[in-house]
């Protein structure tokens, strides 16, 4: 289970406004909190509900809320499949159906009931339609909060029934504070690098740093500077990423795409320096000389066509990685 931080950094104004005005006084019972993954929407939502419970109803059991065991709170996210023992690829309809009994039963106390769906991007068609049915017949004291990373992933019929709030990524100062909560001894230059690589998303940055992103980046740079196509370095590197979990591999591919797109920009004469806080732009400049635009587009095409199949059909990540780097013609 994901551990939710109880300390909110940033979004203080949002918290004050939403807890005072919108949730309880609002005419709608359903809300969408959307913004990039890892920017703190889940933490914010937990803090918001905690604030509403404590300020408006003098409820003091915040620990239950963060353990997801509060009687007036249901937290829906992807769960581990019992048979395969793997994380489901989406939120199943049974999980949404279970909310029905929660909504249609009374509250044991005076508190309103909250249902968080994190993230609603993971709903499949059946579970989306089941959720839609619940949103269409709102109950007075039940509130839905849908955490969404990409708004277009949500069915228009669900979107139209929710009040939407956009969350932007935190400032560098807040980003720094959040990262230092998890890694107190992190160096200043590493924070800038993480900010660049994660596009200001602290959640993503924490994941990257936990997965030794610096080593991965160094290895990637060696490969880009490699002269031979099927070199020992490529095979060794592919062996390392070959044992990654799906989530780790997704992170690796996101970094790869970021680097490739910026190399493309450099080759097209675009100044990328202003977009980066760290010296990553200099590194990209240096490797851009070794790679031409055609091979970058080939790799990006390959990823676009095959990335989904990799996770759906559980393909060999080592071979996938070798194929990517073989596409680079020097």
């Amino acid at each position, binding site marked *: 289970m994901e551990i939710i931080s109880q300390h909110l950094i940033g979004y203080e104004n949002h918290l004050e406004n939403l807890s005072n005005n919108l949730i309880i006084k609002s005419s709608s019972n359903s809300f969408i909190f959307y913004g990039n993954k890892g920017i703190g929407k889940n933490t914010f939502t937990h803090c918001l509900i905690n604030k509403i419970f404590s300020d408006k109803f003098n409820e003091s059991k915040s*620990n239950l809320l963060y*353990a997801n*065991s*509060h*009687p007036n709170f249901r937290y829906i996210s992807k769960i581990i499949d019992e048979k395969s023992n793997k994380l489901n690829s989406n939120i199943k309809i049974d999980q949404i159906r279970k909310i029905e*009994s929660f909504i*249609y039963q*009374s*509250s*044991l106390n005076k508190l309103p009931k909250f249902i968080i769906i994190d993230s609603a991007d993971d709903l499949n068609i059946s579970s989306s339609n089941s959720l839609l049915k619940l949103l269409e017949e709102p109950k007075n004291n039940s509130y839905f909060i849908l955490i969404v990373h990409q708004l277009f992933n949500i069915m228009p019929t669900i979107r139209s029934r929710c009040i939407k709030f956009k969350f932007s990524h935190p400032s560098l100062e807040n980003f720094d504070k959040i990262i230092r909560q998890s890694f107190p001894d992190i160096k200043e230059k590493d924070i800038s690098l993480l900010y660049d690589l994660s596009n200001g998303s602290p959640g993503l940055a924490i994941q990257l740093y936990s997965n030794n992103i610096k080593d991965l980046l160094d290895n990637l740079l060696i490969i880009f500077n490699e002269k031979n196509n099927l070199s020992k370095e490529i095979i060794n590197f592919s062996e390392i990423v070959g044992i990654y979990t799906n989530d780790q591999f997704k992170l690796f591919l996101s970094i790869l795409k970021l680097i490739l797109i910026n190399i493309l920009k450099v080759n097209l004469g675009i100044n990328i320096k202003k977009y980066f806080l760290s010296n990553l732009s200099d590194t990209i400049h240096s490797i851009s000389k070794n790679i031409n635009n055609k091979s970058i587009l080939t790799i990006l095409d390959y990823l676009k066509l095959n990335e989904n199949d990799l996770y759906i059909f559980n393909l060999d990540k080592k071979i996938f990685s070798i194929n990517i780097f073989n596409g680079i013609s020097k």
Partner: protein
Amino acid sequence: MKISVEKSSIFKSLSYVQSIVEKKNTIPVLSNVLIQAKDNNLILSATDMDISITAQLNCNVIEEGFVTVSAHTLYDIIRKLPDGNEVEFISNDGKIFSIRSGKSKFSLGCLPKEDFPIIEVDKLKSEISIQSQELLKLIEKTRFAISNEETRYFLNGIYFHMRESGGNQYISIVATDGHRLAKIDYESNNKPEDIPGVIIPKKTINELCKLLSDYNGTIKIDLDPNKIIFFIDKSVLISKLIDGNFPDYQRVIPKDNKNIMTINRNDFCMAVDRVSTITNEKSPVIKFRLLKDLMNMTSADSENGLATEDIITEYSGEEIEIGFNSKYILEMINHLTDEKIKLSFNDSSSPVIATEDSNQNLIYVLMPMRV
């Protein structure tokens, strides 16, 4: 925490408590039972966040404390211990829980007590006292009619309310699934305005029946529109209620069924059972033809064939041809107890009422099927 308790006393309490814990739980702490030892008492609590059960028992508390451990594992361990054995529970830091009995020793992992949702027993607006076996009888007579259809959530429980009739006050318990209705009244001293009408969920009813069946004495029920609390011996069952409006069932109960048939319940039950052999889930209907002092039952299925049987009745009303779901009519007859029961009809498209002389407060209504 360190306590010592006799196996049979904790096993009984634990069996009540663990039964509400779901086997598959996405929130780990809800798979656990909270064990609290204080003042020579052991308090066991479990919840699924809709229902909470607390059971209290006497034990020898050597050191007070509390801990949460897996309910099903603990139950299985206690169940397998020899009867009459003393069981010792020890937990020093709330992280490891040890069970010792005879030469057996078990160690279980614990979860923080702070994450366990404790549902408080508050003072509620209304209070009723009733004999446990009387309440159990009322529930047993009606709960078979509770709907399982999730779309009509307000029928997924029994409607518990007070009503006044002929200057007397009654506690009325009603269950319906839209096809059949079961209603039973119990004379009570409480005033109708004191007790709100509430719908008690099916799962709560099932757990309540387990507790009631093992206790013979007076129980106390506290309720308000949001919550119901049953105080049964040393156990407390707290439950949410269904937040909906129960339909006006009085309108469904026919007032002018003038064609009354008296029939031997046992014979009728066996005859329906025989004829229903031919029916299947797709066409469960049995056709009843009511003639003077005789009833003919027919069921037909295109694949299985045809079944027919005549049964002697006491009937002098109009000739009626009416169809009923074989499963529903069997369940209804089985919940009546008299040797002779009364079925009153109006016409072939109106519901039938089933009653018995020994219990005038019990009424079953069954909707007919098209034949």
